[in-house]
């Protein structure tokens, strides 16, 4: 081993150390709540803080549910338009114009999330509340629309905001994979006399793994997003199938409750265990996304 490598090793060790230490900190701090409640912390929807520790009981199921629900809404909205934009840029636009569409998506990917937040709370949620009222008044027999929520703060608002935030990632991944399809395939497909729709369908089936990876990574981002979501989700311990219901996500629960957690005996531990859940969900989703990319040679 050369000296230079030995010199660099501690640095690399430190990078790994940060992540490992983080996992240790979250695990250690979760122990008290696990000892007290066991798995119930993840399987019940109760948030009972008490001045006397005996009265305390915490279950973050509503937050786990809200995290998965909002992220799923985000993906269902984002995926079709991500694919659409990717194909639009690579097939319909002349080379010179492509950058005009790619640069804005790059800006969106990097834009500070608090800007999505201020837009979400002052622009998006108020304008959605009108639409929600209309759908509730006329279509409340459909379960998704069955919640009377005049505030606009809901799973739907959070889901839409997340969709806007994760689309740039999904679309750029899909676009790069789509453009990387060897031109022989392209020419072969078009030489069959297929329409653009039919040809694209065939070509997209070549990059299924990239679309899957894009979906997973976008989902991972949505799961971890905090500030923008916490401003529009409504922050209620609620488990409801309706899009219009207010709820919580794990990250917004932490952002909202951690400030007053330490006056209670077990709330800090409950929130660290929520963090641990987020840590693990994020890890599993992102690692699977990266594995898919690796497996198919995109990264």
């Amino acid at each position, binding site marked *: 081993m*050369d000296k*230079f*490598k030995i*010199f*660099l*090793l501690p*640095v*690399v060790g*430190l*990078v*790994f150390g940060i*992540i490992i230490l*983080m996992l240790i900190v*979250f695990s250690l*701090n979760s122990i008290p709540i696990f000892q007290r409640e066991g798995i119930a912390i993840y399987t019940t929807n109760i948030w009972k803080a008490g001045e006397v520790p005996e009265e305390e009981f915490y279950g973050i199921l509503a937050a786990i549910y809200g995290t998965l629900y909002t992220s799923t809404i985000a993906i269902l909205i984002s995926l079709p*338009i*991500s*694919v*659409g*934009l990717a194909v*639009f840029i690579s*097939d*319909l636009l002349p080379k010179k114009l492509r950058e005009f569409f790619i*640069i*804005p*998506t*790059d*800006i969106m990917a*990097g*834009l*500070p*999330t*608090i800007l999505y*937040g*201020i*837009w979400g*709370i*002052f622009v998006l949620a108020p304008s959605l509340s009108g639409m929600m009222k209309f759908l509730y008044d006329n279509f409340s027999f459909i379960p998704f629309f069955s919640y009377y929520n005049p505030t606009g703060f809901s799973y739907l608002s959070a889901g839409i905001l997340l969709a*806007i935030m994760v689309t740039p990632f999904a*679309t750029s991944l899909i676009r790069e994979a789509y453009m990387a399809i060897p031109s022989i395939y392209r020419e072969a497909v078009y030489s069959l006399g297929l329409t*653009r*729709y039919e040809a694209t369908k065939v070509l997209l089936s070549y990059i299924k793994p990239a679309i899957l990876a894009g979906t997973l*990574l976008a989902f*991972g981002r949505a799961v*971890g997003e*905090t*500030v923008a979501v916490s*401003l529009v989700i409504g922050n209620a311990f609620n488990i409801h199938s309706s899009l219009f219901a207010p709820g919580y996500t794990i*990250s917004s629960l932490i*952002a909202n409750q*951690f*400030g007053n957690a330490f006056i209670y005996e077990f709330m800090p531990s409950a*929130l*660290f265990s929520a963090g641990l859940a*987020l*840590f693990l969900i*994020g890890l599993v989703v992102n690692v699977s*996304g*990266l594995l898919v990319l690796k497996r198919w040679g995109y*990264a």
Partner: protein
Amino acid sequence: MLRELKNKVFILYLIISAFLVLFPLLHILFSVFANGIPVLLKFGMEFLTETLPAPNKPGGGIFPAIYGTFVMVFLASLIGIPLAVLAGIFVAEYPNNALSKATRSLLLIMMEFPTILVGLFVMAIIVLPLGSFSALAGAIALSIVMLPYVATYTEQAMRSVPQQYKEGAYALGLRKVRVVFSITLKIAKKGVVTGLLIGMAKVSGETAPLIFTAGNAWRSTGGALEPAGAVPLWIYYLVQQPYANYHELAWGAAFVLMVFFLAIFLPIRLSMVRS
């Protein structure tokens, strides 16, 4: 006929997709400009030099937030950049090593990692033992967020340096340290600096890692061990207040943040198009 129709519908779908992606961006940019510029005009230069006003009182500004963002990004860079660049060098220089493959994956995972968890982590290991929210704690959280971006850009830039340069240098009998620092890194300079700037732009807009670390300051500016404000943090708190003048401040701060971000990001991005 049906084939033709399907095709038309499909093309329409593509165009609508493009519109649906771009419309929110334009709407956000427009909202921030339309709400932010009047605020800046109304408050004048004081907006950048004054501190938080009382509720429903005229005047005031966001100076402690700008100051805090500046201090924390600066400290985060001091801590994070050397680490990140060295980690990037390691991955680039020893690409086939198992450890460096693992590091590469780790950096990619860190990029996607929920930043609120970084904040909670730093609160547990820095804020509680030190007994105070501080700019330093905020900066440490930001440096962890910044690390994977800078490291990955460094790695890519280092790897894009043609092999001949390095081989030439080795042929002259230079040691690896010299080759890396005086040859490869010099040639890769532009890519590395791009990484630094992207990393700094990224963390200057981060809110979640700061909520439980920096603490916030509305009226004061201080040293590294004192609580500090930050522009994104101010926006986060101000929008949750019921006062009209606080909402104005929030829009003005959002405008400042956006201009700052675009001023760093756009030149970098446009220079990529040219090259």
